[in-house]
């Protein structure tokens, strides 16, 4: 007896598979399991070394189980080779399974598999052939494909349906891997659709679909030469018309797998061909109406029908049918079906907008669905369906949705609501209300530019200022933790606070708010820890504004602001100090400084650019900054051409007094100068804010201050003269010397004592050649009636030659619908200013 045989006979039989499984499962801890596995692996390795033929399959089976648990099993690969080379079916069965599980195409060893495969593909036992085909279908590499393609092509022509269908799928797999090999399979594919066997038919449709996907030529070939479409239509018709076939029936539907596969191929064929699409129309409608939809399987078929109708060049009626099918899906109890419906509707909504609109109510209902992915799709679809007609109703629903929606959607939902509101709002008030609601509900999730956009919108809507201020106040008193909302609200209260009490907007309740209440709320925001820095900066500035707008709260406001003089926040501290100064030394300037903001024209421009109003707007913007460009200036506003211009010219001479906006070169005609000055406030508003962040708005507003402080530090000899007084327009000038020699600063103040307001007020001045004049931005352009407000402007004069100052004035404004121009002259400047 050989040593080996003795050894073998006393070796215990390898553990049975189920015993191993049982043992592993009863392990209490991961460590226990590991030790069981390691012990078994060692035994298996031993067994492999001993070339044990009898139990090899058992050992490999155990190894496969161990592999599934996640342990390494590569030492079993060679053993699989040996198994598949064995004549026994049991060995081959496990061997091929092992190949499929342990090998992938990147292993070198599986090239050895190719040989066994070749042999087994032509085995007399069909089940062994089947094993080989199955394995090829899983692990074929490019080389394997090329090696065995010929063999597979032969097997497709086999008379045995069992082998035929498997070979067809192998061919399908080969073509996916190596598209070049497709050619050789085309001839044998042709006749496959004549088969009766469902398995063969099904796999053949798979193969043909893949061929058509991969090669448009082949598709064309099939469509034209083989008249594929009519044939498929026939097959499908037979399927649904034929009686009950128990073998292929699924819940009353005849072979749904085959139906869906055929529909998919039809889709591919009809996509680019009108004639093919027309041939399919009838059968599609027929299947759609005949399919029993009591179970999921019916829905699966209808779903494929919808996809096909949408994917081919179908007639309109059919498309409407498809959308209606989806609409019915939406009402189904099964959430999977609702999900599918919403998903598909999202894909077709652009193309079939009107059809989808009809199902809007159902879609909106899905916003309340318990499944999050359904809610998400319903939301996206809802936004796609908003138009000018349904915007009010839709917004109501979407706002309600926003209130309760999941965190991950909030940002998207906010942006979309704001965008839709901008596009479709029926009127300004509704627009503002809607954006305000968004801010209140989900303010912390909105994008940064919503704040400035809303402020812009509000400032444009003059008629609603009081209403808005009131709404803002109410919202703020409820909850000021949402920063964007707080910022907008605070700004509005600051700008329009005084209108709050006289509001008479329809269907609003009478106001029950006092100035004190408002100040209290703003103070709360200012002092609250939850408010971020920007909000606080807004708040302090608002309080300041309110000091001139409100009548009774000045001392209180002053007190609040002073506290922040010692704030650790540098911004707040600076503002507090500056404002406090304003209260003390320069109280007379305070109202002027705190006039209403001019309309933010830059924003309007950027908005109109977005709305594609073309290049003009951009040039205009460029024109504002490039002050030399006279043409642009002329296109903006037509200043009334002064016919008295020549007399001014005569009087003062040719000298150019330089306004802020220096026009280019040389002796500039005074007329032109005045023309420059007269164009628009924006030119003079060199400090108009141009950025979109709210903070910068205030920066723009604040920046005139330094120039004022300069004055304030100067000689305090102030003298006040009346520069002009006629037709209820009074222009006064307050002059003082500046710290710099020869510079005098003049504060111009204009008031309107008539009973009607003056708007678009523009003040211009001209001085003799020997003077240099700098005209700064006016505080505004509106003169309220009855001296209720004023416009102030600062002029700096440099009298280098120390001659007597003379000044020509020109003022234009609109009143009662008429444009009025006034001219004047000032000769009464005190001499001592320049001594």
């Amino acid at each position, binding site marked *: 007896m050989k040593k080996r045989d003795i050894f073998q006979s006393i070796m215990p039989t390898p553990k049975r598979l189920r015993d191993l499984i049982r043992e592993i499962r009863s392990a209490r801890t991961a460590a226990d399991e590991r030790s069981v596995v390691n012990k078994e692996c060692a035994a298996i390795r031993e067994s492999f070394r001993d070339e044990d033929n009898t139990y090899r399959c058992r050992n490999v089976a155990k190894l496969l189980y161990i592999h599934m648990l996640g342990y390494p099993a590569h030492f079993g690969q060679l053993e699989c080779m040996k198994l598949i080379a064995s004549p026994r079916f049991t060995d081959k069965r496990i061997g091929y399974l092992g190949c499929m599980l342990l090998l992938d195409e990147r292993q070198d060893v599986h090239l050895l598999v190719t040989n066994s495969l070749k042999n087994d593909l032509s085995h007399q036992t069909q089940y062994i052939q089947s094993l080989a085909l199955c394995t090829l279908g899983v692990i074929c590499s490019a080389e394997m494909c090329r090696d065995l393609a010929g063999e597979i092509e032969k097997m497709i022509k086999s008379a045995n349906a069992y082998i035929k269908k498997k070979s067809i799928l192998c061919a399908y797999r080969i073509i996916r891997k190596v598209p070049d090999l497709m050619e050789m399979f085309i001839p044998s594919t042709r006749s496959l659709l004549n088969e009766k066997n469902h398995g063969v038919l099904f796999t053949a449709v798979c193969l043909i679909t893949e061929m058509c996907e991969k090669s448009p030529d082949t598709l064309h070939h099939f469509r034209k030469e083989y008249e594929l479409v009519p044939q498929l239509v026939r097959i499908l018709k037979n399927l649904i018309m034929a009686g009950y076939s128990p073998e292929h029936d699924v819940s009353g539907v005849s072979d749904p797998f085959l139906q869906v596969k055929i529909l*998919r191929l039809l889709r591919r064929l009809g996509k680019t061909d009108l004639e093919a699409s027309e041939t399919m129309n009838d059968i599609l409608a027929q299947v759609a109406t005949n399919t029993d939809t009591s179970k999921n399987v019916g829905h699966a078929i209808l*779903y494929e029908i919808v996809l096909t109708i949408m994917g081919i060049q179908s007639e309109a009626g059919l498309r409407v049918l498809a959308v209606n099918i989806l609409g019915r899906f939406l009402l189904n109890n099964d959430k999977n079906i609702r999900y599918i419906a919403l998903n598909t509707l999202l894909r077709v909504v652009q193309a079939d907008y009107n059809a989808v609109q009809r199902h809007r109510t159902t879609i909106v209902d899905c916003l309340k669905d318990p499944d999050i992915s359904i809610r998400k799709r319903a939301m996206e679809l809802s936004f796609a369906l908003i138009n000018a007609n349904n915007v009010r109703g839709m917004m109501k629903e979407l706002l309600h949705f926003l209130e309760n929606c999941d965190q991950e959607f909030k940002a998207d939902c906010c942006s979309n609501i704001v965008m839709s509101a901008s596009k479709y709002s029926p009127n300004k008030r509704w627009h503002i209300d809607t954006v305000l609601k968004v801010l209140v509900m989900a303010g912390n999730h909105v994008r940064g530019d919503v704040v400035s956009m809303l402020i812009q919108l509000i400032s444009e809507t003059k008629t609603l200022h009081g209403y808005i201020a009131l709404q803002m106040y109410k919202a703020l008193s409820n909850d000021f933790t949402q920063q964007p909302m707080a910022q907008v609200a605070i700004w509005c209260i600051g700008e329009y606070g005084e209108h709050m009490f006289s509001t008479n907007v329809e269907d609003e309740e009478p106001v029950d708010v006092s100035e004190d209440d408002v100040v209290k709320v703003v103070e709360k925001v200012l002092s609250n820890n939850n408010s971020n820095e920007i909000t606080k900066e807004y708040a302090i500035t608002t309080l300041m504004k309110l000091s001139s707008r409100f009548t009774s709260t000045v001392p209180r406001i002053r007190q609040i602001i002073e506290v922040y003089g010692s704030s650790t926040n540098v911004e707040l501290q600076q503002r507090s100090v500056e404002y406090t100064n304003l209260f003390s030394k320069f109280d007379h300037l305070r109202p002027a400084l705190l006039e209403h903001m001019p309309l933010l024209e830059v924003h309007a421009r950027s908005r109109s650019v977005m709305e594609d109003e073309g290049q003009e707007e951009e040039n205009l913007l460029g024109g504002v900054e490039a002050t030399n460009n006279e043409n642009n200036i002329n296109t903006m506003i037509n200043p009334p051409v002064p016919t008295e211009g020549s007399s001014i010219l005569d009087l003062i001479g040719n000298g150019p007094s330089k306004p802020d906006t220096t026009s280019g070169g040389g002796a500039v005609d005074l007329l032109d100068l005045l023309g420059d000055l007269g164009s628009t406030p924006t030119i003079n508003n060199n400090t108009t804010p141009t950025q979109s962040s709210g903070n910068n708005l205030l920066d723009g507003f604040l920046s005139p201050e330094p120039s004022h402080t300069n004055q304030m530090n100067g000689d305090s000899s102030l003298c006040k003269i009346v520069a002009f007084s006629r037709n209820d327009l009074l222009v006064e000038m307050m002059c003082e010397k500046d710290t710099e020699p020869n510079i005098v600063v003049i504060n111009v103040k204009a008031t309107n004592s008539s009973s009607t307001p003056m708007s678009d007020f523009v003040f211009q001045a001209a001085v003799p050649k020997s003077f240099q004049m700098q005209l700064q931005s006016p505080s505004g352009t509106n003169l309220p009636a009855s001296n209720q407000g004023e416009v102030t402007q600062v002029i700096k004069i440099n009298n280098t030659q120390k001659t007597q100052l003379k000044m020509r004035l020109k003022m234009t404004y609109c009143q009662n619908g008429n444009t009025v121009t006034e001219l004047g002259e000032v000769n009464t400047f005190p001499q001592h200013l320049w001594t």
Partner: protein
Amino acid sequence: MQFMLLFSRQGKLRLQKWFVAHTDKVKKKITRELVTLVLGRKPKMCSFLEWKDLKVVYKRYASLYFCCAIEPEDNELLTLEIIHRYVELLDKYFGSVCELDIIFNFEKAYFMLDEFLLGGEVQETSKKNVLKAIAAQDLLQEEETPQGFFDDHGLG
């Protein structure tokens, strides 16, 4: 179909069939990710989810999750039917199949799957034919290792 995974509620893998070539490492990573994703779903949620550029369809039968990854053009509702057909086949074969059957006879579960799907596509739409093929092959196996011998030799 790109792959099918069967796993328990504790995340233990019971079967994995891959129809695309990936390394072992990649397969493990994908499996881990998907198992976590699917086990994290609540009962009210629908059976479909999007993952990378694939659609994942899953369904729970008793204590086992059946999870398939399909391509964007594939029909999700039909995939549910495919899963159901597979479960029906196992049920017929094992007689009221439960998770334990699949654990202790995992190789048979694979054999069944290989008669139903090939290359990621359905190969036989008739339940009867699939079961017939399996029965025939089991018979072949039994004939090779006669009954008395079966427990000691063969797979056991």
